[in-house]
């Protein structure tokens, strides 16, 4: 007999023979039928089919043989005896058809036999199958055995179970024993078959020419399911139903078989075959098909096996599968500790200990074990450990300790470590913990902040590992920032803020140790994460204050200590340039402490002196911060003699910033009544201004801010003006006004001085209950007011305005001055402010005259311009800003749905536009005077 040469031909051949076979069976012509069966079985002899094609033919054959076996069973023994037939088919010519026929008949015979006869038949079949040593054909014939015998091997089970239930209790033990033997035999049978199949499967790899290796590998992957099915079969035998496992007896029985016979045999196969594909596939299948709680108890054996696998096998992949199974199981079982204890008792070993021993073994046995696999492994063990044991951070600590030491031993240089970056980021930010199980385990943001906090506090090696990443700066910073962001999110976005609590200074030190790399981080490209550090400082302070009743930071003095050690960390031995960004936050916290201390001072009258001194002390700390910053900026100056524009900007910015910090400090001190401290801070501000603030634009703004601050002070002058002739306030405001009159640009001088006039005219501060309108009110009587000096300022300002050669500027400043005069006119009585209606009228006259001469310039200008252009220009409008900059207002024609923004005018304006600025401003002011007339009769004295 020969087989067909094309696949289609082979297929039709099988189908045809199958039809013929059926026809003969219908006529009860068994011998004829067997002949056709034998014919179609010839097709399975062809060695040229790929596994896929072979499988397709096998399916056709399998279906036909099923029809045949149905006939055989139905007609036994009235038309034939299966024992005879079993002998008969042995005479078939070729081994493949012979075996298929034999197995078909043999399995039919199994239906009628039990006990030892059945076992004999099974043994015989498996022995005969050895006759085929071609991998593909051999695999399929063994697969055929397994498919055909499946029902008997597993049916045995259910049958005996039924018997068990029906029989008397007395007999149970004996049946159980018999049962056990059967199960053992069945397992052994499948195991045998499996071992042979596995050998064939591995052999397939080494068949044919070397260049077809890849092709072979592909084919093997296609065939792997045949091998895997054997393990599935095994698991079906020993798998216990829910109710059986409750009894526990069967469970134990099955488990014994599994742990003593099945698993060792399987693992031995895996190790001995030395084949990567086989090892990876089979280990994975073992993890997948057998019950999870078996794995717990046989964890030692499983893990040990992996150490001896082919070095090319990715162990961590296998372990991860196993760990995922275990964690899923733990999560399914619920996370109650009781369950876990039970499981621990059952397994007789500690899961974590097992894994712990395992990674140490790997390290000892496998010197070639790569670091990236270690990292993945550790990540998974942490994951398992955290779901298995709820709060055992000591495990996490051990693992990080292990990682830290592995790092040290491997002594990797930075480029070698580059490929580890993503792994480390995942491991050290616990990215693993944060995704996937969110909904299931109901973990929230609070949980995470607390989780990270616990890790930092309880696992010193975690910080050690992070610090060890110093050569991989980018990833180190990324890890820290990621974790800090968790804290920030927690602080901002959750109601439940008490979740993590800063308990002691020791904890604080640990937290700061962890933050240290970020605190010191210098990124030449800017954006070095100091914003996160600053936010973290706020968070630490908030946490401390919120939880002060239950932590060791009960008093303000305790809290102060914390802020001081925070400050020292940030400064890092006087050399951290990042303090420019982080110190302002520390200063804010100091300010908060000062205000709190002041509040306590008002509550605990007995301890007023104590708080008084404390407040003074904190102000000194703030002052230290200021001078640190100042020194730092100046030091920077010296270092970079040839500093470029960017550095110049930074310096102006920083000096200005320190100047303003001093003013804010002064204001705060003044509000609390610490006039000496306030005076001192104002003096420091002056020093900064005089020594370091050189940019004229910044000077102008800085001085105006100082004027604003000084104008709001209350503590610097005494109740009685006469007594305090040489009071602090006087000297400060005179100094301020003097600086104003010495500014570089005349228009700055003029504006600065007219603003300084307010320093001699204190106004109400609503928030502390002052009200000028209350007749004979106590509050306004001691206001610092001096009309004479006020008018002097305005006059001085007017002289400056008048002396400016630019007519437009001069006019605009006069209009601004007019507005200032109107302010005093409206707010105070003429005899007090000395700003009289006459004075204002004089100013208005002066402005009118000047505007007239300005308009003459305009007429000259007009003669030149074209009429068209003129119209266009008219639609433009210009104003001056607070600092005298020209702004071009958006034109009136813009559609209501468009937003337009005024442009800062940089190019030179036409004279016409320039003239419009003071003229329009003056007109608007006059409108104001006119409307005020109806409300305040005094305004009628002003002539417009």
């Amino acid at each position, binding site marked *: 007999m020969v087989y067909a040469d094309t696949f289609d031909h082979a297929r039709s051949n099988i189908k045809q023979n199958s039809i013929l076979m059926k026809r003969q069976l219908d006529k009860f012509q068994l011998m004829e039928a067997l002949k056709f069966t034998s014919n179609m079985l010839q097709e399975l002899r062809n060695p040229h089919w790929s596994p896929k094609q072979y499988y397709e033919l096998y399916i056709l054959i399998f279906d036909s043989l099923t029809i045949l076996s149905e006939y055989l069973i139905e007609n036994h023994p009235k038309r034939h005896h299966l024992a005879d037939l079993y002998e008969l088919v042995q005479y078939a010519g070729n081994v493949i058809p012979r075996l298929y026929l034999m197995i078909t008949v043999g399995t039919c015979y199994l239906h009628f036999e039990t006990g030892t006869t059945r076992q004999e038949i099974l043994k015989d079949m498996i022995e005969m199958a050895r006759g085929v040593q071609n991998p593909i054909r051999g695999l399929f014939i063994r697969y055929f055995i397994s498919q055909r015998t499946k029902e008997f091997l597993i049916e045995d089970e259910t049958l005996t179970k039924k018997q068990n239930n029906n029989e008397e209790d007395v007999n149970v033990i004996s049946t159980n024993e018999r049962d056990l033997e059967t199960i053992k035999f069945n397992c052994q049978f499948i195991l045998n078959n499996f071992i042979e199949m596995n050998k064939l499967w591995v052999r397939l790899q080494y068949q044919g020419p070397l260049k077809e290796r890849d092709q072979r590998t592909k084919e093997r992957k296609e065939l792997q399911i045949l091998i895997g099915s054997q393990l599935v079969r095994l698991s079906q035998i020993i798998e216990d139903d829910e109710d059986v496992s409750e009894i526990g007896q069967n469970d134990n029985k099955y488990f014994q078989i599994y742990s003593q016979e099945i698993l060792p045999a399987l693992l031995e196969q895996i190790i001995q075959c030395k084949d990567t594909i086989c090892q990876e596939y089979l280990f994975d299948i073992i993890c997948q098909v057998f019950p999870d709680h078996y794995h717990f108890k046989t964890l030692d054996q499983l893990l040990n096996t992996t150490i001896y696998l082919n070095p090319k096998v990715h162990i961590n992949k296998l372990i991860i599968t196993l760990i995922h199974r275990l964690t899923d199981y733990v999560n399914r079982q619920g996370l109650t500790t009781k369950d876990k204890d039970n499981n621990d008792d059952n397994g007789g070993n500690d899961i974590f200990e097992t894994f712990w021993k395992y990674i140490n073994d790997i390290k000892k046995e496998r010197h070639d074990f790569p670091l990236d696999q270690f990292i993945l492994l550790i990540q998974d063990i942490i994951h398992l450990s955290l779901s298995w044991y709820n709060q055992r951070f000591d495990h996490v600590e051990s693992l990080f300790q292990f990682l830290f030491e592995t790092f040290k031993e491997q002594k990797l240089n930075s480029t070698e470590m580059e490929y580890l970056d993503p792994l480390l980021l995942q491991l050290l930010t616990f990215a693993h913990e944060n995704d996937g199980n969110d909904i299931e385990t109901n973990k929230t943001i609070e949980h995470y902040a607390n989780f990270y906090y616990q890790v930092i506090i309880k696992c010193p090696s975690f910080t050690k590992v992070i610090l060890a990443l110093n050569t991989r700066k980018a990833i180190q910073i990324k890890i820290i920032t990621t974790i800090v962001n968790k804290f920030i999110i927690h602080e901002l976005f959750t109601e439940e803020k008490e979740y993590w609590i800063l308990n002691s200074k020791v904890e604080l030190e640990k937290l700061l140790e962890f933050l240290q790399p970020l605190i010191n981080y210098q990124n030449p490209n800017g954006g070095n994460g100091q914003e996160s550090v600053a936010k973290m400082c706020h968070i630490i302070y908030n946490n401390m204050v919120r939880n002060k009743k239950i932590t060791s930071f009960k008093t303000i003095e305790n809290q102060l200590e914390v802020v001081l050690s925070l400050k020292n960390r940030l400064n890092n031995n006087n050399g951290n340039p990042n303090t420019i960004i982080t110190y302002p936050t520390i200063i804010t916290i100091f300010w*908060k402490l000062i205000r709190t201390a002041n509040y306590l001072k008002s509550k605990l009258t007995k301890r007023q002196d104590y708080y008084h001194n404390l407040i003074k002390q904190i102000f000194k700390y703030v002052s230290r911060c200021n001078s640190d910053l100042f020194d730092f900026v100046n030091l920077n100056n010296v270092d970079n003699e040839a500093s470029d524009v960017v550095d110049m900007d930074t310096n102006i910015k920083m000096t200005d910033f320190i100047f303003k910090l001093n003013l804010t400090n002064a204001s705060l001190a003044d509000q609390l009544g610490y006039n000496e401290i306030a005076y001192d801070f104002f003096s420091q501000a002056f020093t900064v201004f005089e020594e370091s603030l050189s940019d004229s634009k910044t000077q102008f703004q800085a001085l105006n801010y100082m004027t604003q601050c000084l104008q709001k002070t209350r503590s610097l002058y005494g109740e009685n003006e006469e007594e305090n002739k040489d009071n602090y306030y006087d000297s400060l405001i005179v100094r301020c006004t003097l600086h104003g009159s010495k500014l570089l640009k005349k228009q700055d001088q003029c504006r600065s001085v007219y603003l300084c006039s*307010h320093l001699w005219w204190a106004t109400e501060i609503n928030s502390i*209950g002052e009200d000028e309108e209350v007749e004979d009110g106590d509050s306004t009587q001691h206001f610092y007011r001096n009309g004479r000096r006020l008018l002097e300022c305005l006059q001085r300002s007017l002289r400056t305005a008048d002396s400016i050669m630019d007519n437009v500027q001069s006019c605009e400043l006069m209009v601004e001055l007019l507005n200032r005069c109107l302010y005093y006119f409206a707010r105070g009585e003429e005899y007090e402010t000395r700003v009289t209606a006459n004075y204002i009228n004089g100013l208005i006259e002066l402005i009118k005259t000047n505007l007239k001469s300005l308009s003459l310039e305009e007429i000259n200008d007009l003669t030149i311009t074209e009429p068209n252009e003129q119209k266009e220009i008219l639609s433009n409008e210009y104003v001056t800003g607070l600092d005298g900059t020209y702004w071009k207002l958006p034109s009136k024609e813009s559609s209501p749905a468009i937003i337009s923004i005024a442009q800062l005018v940089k190019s030179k304006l036409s004279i016409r536009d320039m003239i419009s600025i003071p003229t329009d401003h*003056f007109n608007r002011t006059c409108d104001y005077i006119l409307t005020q007339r109806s409300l305040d009769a005094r305004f009628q004295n002003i002539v417009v």
Partner: protein
Amino acid sequence: MERLSARGEEDYQIKIKPKRLKEFKYRRNMLLVALGDAYIPNRAIDIPLKFKKLLSIPDKISHIALLGNSTQSNEFLSFLSEISPNISIVRGEFDNPKISIPKVKATDTKGEVSNNPDENKEELPLTSIIKVGDFRIGCCSGYTVVPKNDPVSLLILARQLNVDILLWSGTHNVEAYTLEGKFFVNPGSCTGAFNSDWPIMDDLPLPQEQSQQNNSSTTSAVETDTKEDEVVSQDNSTEKTAVEEPKQEKQEEEQEINEEDIDIPDSVATGSNTPSFCLLDIQNSTCTLYIYIYVDGDVRVDKVVYKKNDSPEDNQPYN
């Protein structure tokens, strides 16, 4: 300046659900958000999440006016630039004179700020003017306005800039009133940051009484104090009377009291009120101001309407 009747305070508090912001897009109007004194990270961590959610509606807000002390955080600036590409920034006392404003580029990964500091670095002006509908809106952080927060000095500025609405900041207190037909809005601090100004120490006298002589063509005027303020000041006043009356007993008791037993309200340390910001909804000559205040974890919304008074007698030319 006229305040709505004390009883009326409840009347103008119209609760608006956050959804409301979305509805705006179907109307022909312009939305302008006014924010100020964020002080991130120097004095505050961030704006409340609920504010972020309210503001995070891209393409609806036409303009943002950033009124000082809000440029220290790049993160915050890029958050704002995602809300609206148009941001007007004026300089507050603690802003750098020159800053680089992050621009959201389509190609950029989300929220990444360009690391090159020289790129589009701009000098911050002290004042800025925006035109929306019929309104000219002036922006100013108020830090060079002397006297600080004085309505009349702000009026001078509004006149100088020739604007109808003046947005200012620096007090960390949300405020809105009309004066001389001009509308003055202070959105407060959007983070509720530490306030170095005089803390609010007593019950405020009613502002009706102050600067009455300036009161002319007021359309509708409101001064908004946040609830928190009132709570705080009430606390203080009751404590004060308690201290005053049974003076001797109190002092004896004090010896027993330890520092840690005293509850310190948050406002004592920060000296400021709650976070707040303003939204100006402008249609032709009507400006509806929505004041968003974050109180006890919830956002309270107040509404004030301002109509531009464009009667001819107001525009009388000077003769």
